């Protein structure tokens, strides 16, 4: 019987990944799919990589650590940029995306990344690149690149789940937090134990800000409006529950907290630093995934 039942559904309303039946489309809250389903995962990865690359670059500025700059720059451009281009329907026309900076956040983002690429390169190749002017300019650019993904999402009024005011602070802190983690690990590999331990105080601070922002984001979205709340509910739906619990709660929040507490006060350990980076890395991917996957449109029919 159960096989039959499955067939009934399959035949009449074959699931298309939207989570709603065709007759519920835009009648019940309906998920955003283009930017996460199918090739949409590229966009999710692209936003993530440009964020952490720029984060690493940003933190490295404070340590005037060139390998960090190089790696951050490469992650942002190669992983972030190329993956983004691969997502496009017509990658060879990607250059056209610079055409509408006046209205399109996406277009503005391309300009910013362009500037980041050019000036970053300049900074890396010029000796004495770490001068204050350069650092400030690059710092700002890094923050803009970090928040580029979420900024693009935030302007989409159609998806109220993304319009919370916490979106930008949250995205900046996640970039910085992971960037800091990455740099810390680089120092581990570089055998600079003192730096590693010294950085731990930043890790502690960033973690708690990150956690706070995450909570505020969820809280804000829940209270922003009905549709925002529907998005949050969707995070706990059958389909997303596992990712939410394991990815977001487990990897982004609990495990890093445990590791941070263990290493509290600079009692760092290379393996644990690595473990924490891996955890926040996966955790942040999960957060982004959930945020993209659970964004729903406001139905077009008003029921009451």
């Amino acid at each position: 019987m159960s096989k039959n039942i499955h067939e009934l559904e399959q035949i009449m309303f074959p699931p298309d990944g939207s989570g709603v039946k065709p007759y519920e489309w835009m009648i019940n809250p309906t998920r955003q799919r283009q930017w996460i389903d199918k090739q949409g995962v590229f966009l999710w990865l692209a936003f993530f990589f440009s964020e952490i690359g720029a984060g690493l670059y940003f933190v490295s500025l404070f340590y005037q650590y060139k390998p960090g700059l190089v790696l951050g720059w490469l992650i942002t451009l190669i992983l972030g940029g190329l993956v983004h281009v691969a997502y496009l329907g017509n990658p060879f026309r990607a250059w056209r995306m610079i055409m509408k900076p006046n209205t399109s956040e996406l277009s503005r983002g391309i300009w910013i990344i362009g500037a980041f690429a050019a000036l970053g390169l300049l900074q890396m190749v010029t000796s004495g690149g770490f001068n204050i002017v350069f650092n400030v300019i690059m710092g700002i650019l890094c923050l803009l690149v970090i928040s580029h993904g979420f900024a693009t999402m935030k302007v989409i009024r159609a998806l109220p789940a993304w319009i919370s005011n916490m979106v930008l602070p949250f995205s900046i802190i996640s970039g910085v937090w992971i960037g800091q983690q990455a740099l810390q690990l680089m120092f581990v590999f570089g055998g600079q134990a003192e730096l590693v331990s010294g950085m731990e105080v930043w890790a502690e601070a960033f973690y708690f800000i990150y956690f706070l922002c995450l909570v505020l984001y969820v809280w804000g979205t829940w209270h922003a409006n009905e549709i925002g709340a529907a998005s949050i509910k969707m995070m706990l739906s059958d389909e997303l529950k596992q990712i939410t619990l394991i990815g977001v709660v487990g990897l982004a929040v609990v495990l890093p907290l445990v590791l941070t507490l263990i290493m509290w006060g600079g009692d760092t350990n290379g393996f644990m630093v690595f473990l924490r980076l891996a955890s926040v890395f996966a955790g942040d991917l999960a957060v982004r995934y959930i945020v993209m996957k659970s964004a729903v449109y406001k139905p077009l029919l008003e029921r009451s």
Partner: protein
Amino acid sequence: MPRWGMVIDVKRCIACWGCSIACKEEHFLPPNVFWNRVLIGERGKFPSSSKLILPILCNHCSEAACVEACPTGATYVREDGIVAIDDEKCVGCRACLVSCPYQQRTYYDKEVKDREYFPGQGKTELELIGEKLYPFALGTVIKCNFCTERLEDGIKKGLEPGVDEDASPACVNICPVNARVFGDLDDPNSKINRLIMEHKGKQLRPEFGTEPAVYYID
């Protein structure tokens, strides 16, 4: 320059889906691609509940979210109010698609192109000739174009959109109960403006600030 718009009389509409299917035929749309749909819902409690019917299509918004989001300028508002997509400029970033509060856009990729109306049985003559007569560019976004070709050809022949069949959108023509009326929003005497005035026409989801050119009357 006129500004084209449409009035949908929900009171007349009987939810026959003629508009949805006529649009598919007019533009040879592949399976599961709709430029125009009819939503069915319900309001109220038994026994005084009522059925809700909402035919939807691209609103050709004058403050279009899609136009704003488009990074290339491929999506733009024409002088006559039609929100058009230049498929030679479209990069396929789907920012417009995600941004449209009415979800009126479809990304046309290989998977969509390869769909068959009779799955596994190959494309029919209809689908094959459609790909020649009305080709879409892979990796771009498509949507209702207010039947631009019909309007333009009709106007060239001296016909009047909204009045003459050959200058009017396919969905307007097909509607068996005259629930869809097409015309010029800039002409205060046009039939659509009269209907909007008389029956207090409303736009869909005005809170998004998109200023749709499609109005609903009840």
